[in-house]
């Protein structure tokens, strides 16, 4: 069988990334230009600044990627692009670049949903086994997805308000820890104790999540402690917050596995890098005989390799777009 080389382009938020992946699993080259330092001074991603950075970076990233893989555009089989969801201005830079390359080289254009990308980041380390439940948790997403086979997605539930990563950033800001909040809180929590009492969010039978109440509870707690003249013990608050978050997510994830009689779990997205979450799920999966896999740290955050990997399976299913493809800030995974 002829090898398939997919060029994947990702620009949905604050990372301009491009990768070349062979046959949906072998990462030949990945280049990521992160804007994290630029947005740090604003305490979060500023969409217009993100778009401005993407347009500056895009050709540098493409060129470095091709050079790293020692390949020419003519050797690429198809171009996969994150069409959504994400920040519309950011998405459009990747999209227009992908469409231009598709037009010039007459290569198929493959639209990839960002969440599908996160899920297929796992395929770069271990081939996905089906059926599976995917827990996607990142700055913009918190979802449970059931997959019967390759490139078939059934969303079981998701967040009703804030994404979990967003909640981490907000909590970090309240307690005065640097942006991005996820890694900082994860690190602090390791040396703290879960002594603060926080509400358990949306403790029901659905597969949905809700984190805005928890976020408000942390803000109120910080405020009350200050009014009482007590120092907020950041480590303990981080540990308390993490415990509630990880318990909630784990509980619903395990429920989905049981209800759907599935014994493969994967996690994906930036929050999949969270140490406590990985440990907790690993323990629960071992106890319940579930095969648990997660991507390497470098594939957890946004990158072109995950888009190229997902793009391979989309391509195999004939999901090709024409040059009229548009970006969508919101779109259902299907």
């Amino acid at each position: 069988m002829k090898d398939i080389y997919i060029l994947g382009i990702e620009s949905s938020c604050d990372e301009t990334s491009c990768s070349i992946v062979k046959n949906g699993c072998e990462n030949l080259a990945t280049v990521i230009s992160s804007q994290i330092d630029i947005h740090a001074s604003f305490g979060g991603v500023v969409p217009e600044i993100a778009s401005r950075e993407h347009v500056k970076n895009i050709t540098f990233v493409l060129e470095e990627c091709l050079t790293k893989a020692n390949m020419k555009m003519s050797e690429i089989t198809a171009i996969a692009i994150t069409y959504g969801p994400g920040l519309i201005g950011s998405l459009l830079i990747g999209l227009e670049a992908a469409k231009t390359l598709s037009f010039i080289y007459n290569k198929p254009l493959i639209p990839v949903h960002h969440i599908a990308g996160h899920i297929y980041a796992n395929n770069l380390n271990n081939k996905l086994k089906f059926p599976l439940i995917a827990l996607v948790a990142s700055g913009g997403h918190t979802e449970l997805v059931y997959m019967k086979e390759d490139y078939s997605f059934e969303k079981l539930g998701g967040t009703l308000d804030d994404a979990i990563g967003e909640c981490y950033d907000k909590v970090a800001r309240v307690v005065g820890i640097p942006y991005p909040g996820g890694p900082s809180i994860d690190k602090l929590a390791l040396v703290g104790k879960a002594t603060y009492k926080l509400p358990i969010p949306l403790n029901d039978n659905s597969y949905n999540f809700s984190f805005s109440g928890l976020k408000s509870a942390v803000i109120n707690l910080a405020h009350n402690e200050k009014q009482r003249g007590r120092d907020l013990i950041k480590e303990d608050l981080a540990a308390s917050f993490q415990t509630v978050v990880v318990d909630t997510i784990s509980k619903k994830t395990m429920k989905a596995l049981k209800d759907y009689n599935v014994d493969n779990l994967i996690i994906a997205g930036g929050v999949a890098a969270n140490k406590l979450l990985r440990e907790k799920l690993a323990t629960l999966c071992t106890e319940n005989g579930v095969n648990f896999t997660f991507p390497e740290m470098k594939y957890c955050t946004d990158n072109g390799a995950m888009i190229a990997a997902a793009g391979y399976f989309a391509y195999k299913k004939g999901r090709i777009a024409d040059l009229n493809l548009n970006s969508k800030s919101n779109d259902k995974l299907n």
Partner: protein
Amino acid sequence: MILYIDTTSNYLYSAIVSNNKIISQVKEQLDSDLSVYAVPKIADMFDKNDIAKDDITKIIVVNGPGSFTGIRIGVTIAKVYAWTLKIDITTITSLEAMALSSKSNTTYKVPMIDARRGYVFAGIFDKDNEQIFKSKYIKLDDLKDIVKDLNDSYSWISNNDIDVSNLEAYDPDILKICNKYQDKETLNPHLVKPEYMKLTEAEENLKEAKHD
């Protein structure tokens, strides 16, 4: 053969120019569909005229000011094209293109783009299309005062509905623009970037906060 691209407004203006002739052109109001149709409509010009992508020897892209999103669409297409096929690329501002396309015989030409809240992006050009007032983001009322002080004939140019008398509607003379700018200095495609003429709101707030 020159490829001209301007998506800085709600219009797509694009053309392929060869030997002082327009081979094919698009002048179409696309509004929010610019991101959908810019590439396919440019592609159509190539297909219909049987032009190969590497027949292009120069790309002229209008890099702003105007709609931030619009500017980025055209600049991205142009720089990716120029970079991947190693084609010469140069930029011009939308205000230069507007001044050059004007059919007025006035001493001065004042191209403007609506920037909302009483502001415009504007410049002032003389008869020879030399810029005599640096293009910038300016309050319309202030611009009106400056123009009045010129004490000579002038014409306003825009394709936005701006509150001035005798507004000349902008219709790009792409052939004239290409002829004038085809020999302009070539840029490294990686370094081709938009000319927004305005910081983002977040940057302005940060600047103000530092100032206080």
